[in-house]
């Protein structure tokens, strides 16, 4: 009895660390400690489960568990430590998929032990469906973010098709639970159907919306873990899973809000796709021509400015130019020029992604200014230097109601005296839409790889 008490007690402590940890993750000062506290709680729960288990367990099972944990720890640790900061979002997606797969596998194994019990079977099949969708969906999100799959793929009538599939899956699952079937064939049909749905669910969604999708799948995995907790009457799985499920859902909405879009619009809408409205009406409305400029012209312009705002985007991260931009900023500051960074909430591939990247290079915290605070400053800024950002400075969000990003808050760079835009080419940004900012009379384009362009700017400026 004492023994059960102690495992239950460990689970209670672990559950508390999750709540506390998530709470602390919401504040910059305590975020890191919060994460470590939750990690400590998790470690405690894992070891408690292994060492306080009641019942006869053959040694080789312990060996199996130990081996799996050791291999998983080494691989997980190495990947998490080695991967470049720019790849963070896809990594989160990858790990999320692993959790989903784990939940689905548990269901596959446990199914035969609970046949006949309708509610347990319902819990198991629900866990398999949600876990599998989370797994295959996360894998697609991962492939989209790392560029393997870069075009939204749509089958004709995909919304109808997807809805039909998910409804059939649930009807079939309901039938399985109700009939108390023992059929492993049915079980695997359900498993593969759910996997297929996960793929179909994420495929049509544009790359720019992946953070929202990952966040949503994140809460799905939480739910799948909670269903496992329900099945075993295991409190720590239940609390941890539900907590992530509900917190993840709220976070998903918060992310949608930051982009001024609704979740329904993200999932069923056509953002980032190559459908008619973008190619037809939009590109035709943009008239005029772009103006090219050179590194030395930009260097002169910057040298005689007083206030410069840098708008970093994902292009900066891809070119690994975050260190170069920091050097440029310091050089300009040493010349007595005021330099700030304008950080759009969804710059990069995930909210807060750009802050993480620039923080990596030791940029001063107070130089990173959030959108609401920097927007009034553009009107008395001499030069705005847009590096690899596109959609977050697209005026279409303000003045083109047919644009898919209409209504999204953007950085008001057009108010500055001159705008220098560094891009590799005229290709549209991640959302796949044209940007009339480039045709603005105040804009000049500085084509080239962000890193080499910034480095040549630095050497030009040093010579002045």
């Amino acid at each position, binding site marked *: 009895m004492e023994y059960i008490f102690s495992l239950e007690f460990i689970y209670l402590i672990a559950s508390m660390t999750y709540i506390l940890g*998530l*709470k602390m*993750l*919401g504040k*910059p000062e305590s*975020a*890191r400690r919060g*994460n*470590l506290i*939750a990690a400590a709680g*998790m470690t405690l729960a894992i070891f408690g*489960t292994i060492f306080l288990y009641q019942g006869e367990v*053959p040694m*080789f*099972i312990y060996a*199996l568990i130990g*081996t*799996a*944990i050791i291999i*998983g720890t080494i*691989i*997980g640790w190495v990947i*998490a*430590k080695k991967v470049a900061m720019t790849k*963070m979002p896809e990594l*989160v997606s990858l*790990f999320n998929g*692993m*959790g989903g797969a*784990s939940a689905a596998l548990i269901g596959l*194994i446990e199914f035969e032990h609970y046949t006949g019990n309708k*509610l347990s079977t319902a819990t198991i099949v629900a866990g398999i469906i949600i876990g599998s969708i989370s797994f295959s969906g996360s894998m697609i999100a991962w492939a989209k973010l790392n560029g393997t799959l870069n075009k939204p793929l749509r089958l004709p009538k995909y919304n109808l098709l997807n809805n039909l599939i998910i409804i059939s899956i649930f009807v079939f699952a309901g039938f399985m639970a109700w009939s108390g079937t023992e059929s492993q064939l049915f079980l695997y049909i359900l498993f593969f159907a759910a996997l297929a749905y996960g793929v179909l669910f994420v495929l049509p969604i544009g790359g720019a919306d992946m*953070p929202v999708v*990952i*966040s949503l799948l*994140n809460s799905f995995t939480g739910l799948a*873990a*909670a269903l496992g*907790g*329900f099945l075993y*009457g*295991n409190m720590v*799985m*239940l609390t*941890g*899973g539900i*907590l992530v*499920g*509900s917190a993840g*859902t*709220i*976070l998903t909405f918060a992310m949608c809000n930051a982009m001024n879009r609704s979740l329904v619009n993200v999932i069923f809408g056509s953002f980032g796709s190559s459908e008619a409205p973008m190619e037809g009406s939009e590109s035709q409305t943009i008239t005029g021509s772009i103006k090219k400029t050179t590194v030395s012209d930009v260097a002169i312009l910057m040298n005689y400015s007083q206030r410069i705002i840098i708008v970093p985007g994902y292009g900066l991260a891809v070119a690994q130019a975050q260190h170069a931009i920091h050097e440029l900023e310091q050089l300009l500051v040493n010349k007595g020029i005021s330099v700030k960074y304008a950080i759009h*909430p969804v710059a990069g591939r*995930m909210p*807060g992604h750009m802050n*993480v990247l620039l*923080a990596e290079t*030791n940029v001063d*915290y107070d130089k990173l200014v*959030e959108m609401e605070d920097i927007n009034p400053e553009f009107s008395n800024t001499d030069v705005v230097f847009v590096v690899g950002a596109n959609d977050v400075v697209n005026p279409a969000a303000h003045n083109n109601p047919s644009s898919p990003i209409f209504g999204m808050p953007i950085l008001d760079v057009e108010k500055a005296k001159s705008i220098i835009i560094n891009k590799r080419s005229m290709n549209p940004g991640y959302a796949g839409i044209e940007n009339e900012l480039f045709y603005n009379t105040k804009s000049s384009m500085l084509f080239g790889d962000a890193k080499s362009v910034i480095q040549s700017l630095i050497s030009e400026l040093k010579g002045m």
Partner: protein
Amino acid sequence: MNELIDFISNNIQMIYIVILMIFVGVEIIGHVPAVLHTPLMSGANAIHGVVIIGAILVLLGVNPENYLGQALGFVAVLLGTLNVVGGFVVTDRMLEMFKKKK
């Protein structure tokens, strides 16, 4: 119908926990600055790795003759560990950078 009522009365404790936890989760996120959305999502991602407990329980209770079950259980524990360890380490790496700024 009776089954459902039985289920609720037998599991009232768990139902309480589920409902209270939903509220806790909602309240906790409240007003988090957008800057912290990514680390928060990543941290939450690591926490749902708690599914590994279920995977361990499966393996501990599996029939020694059930080789398929053992193989799947092994993979489940492995993937669960990846979720937990990878999730917490990545989150820590992101947050480490926030710290340096001060």
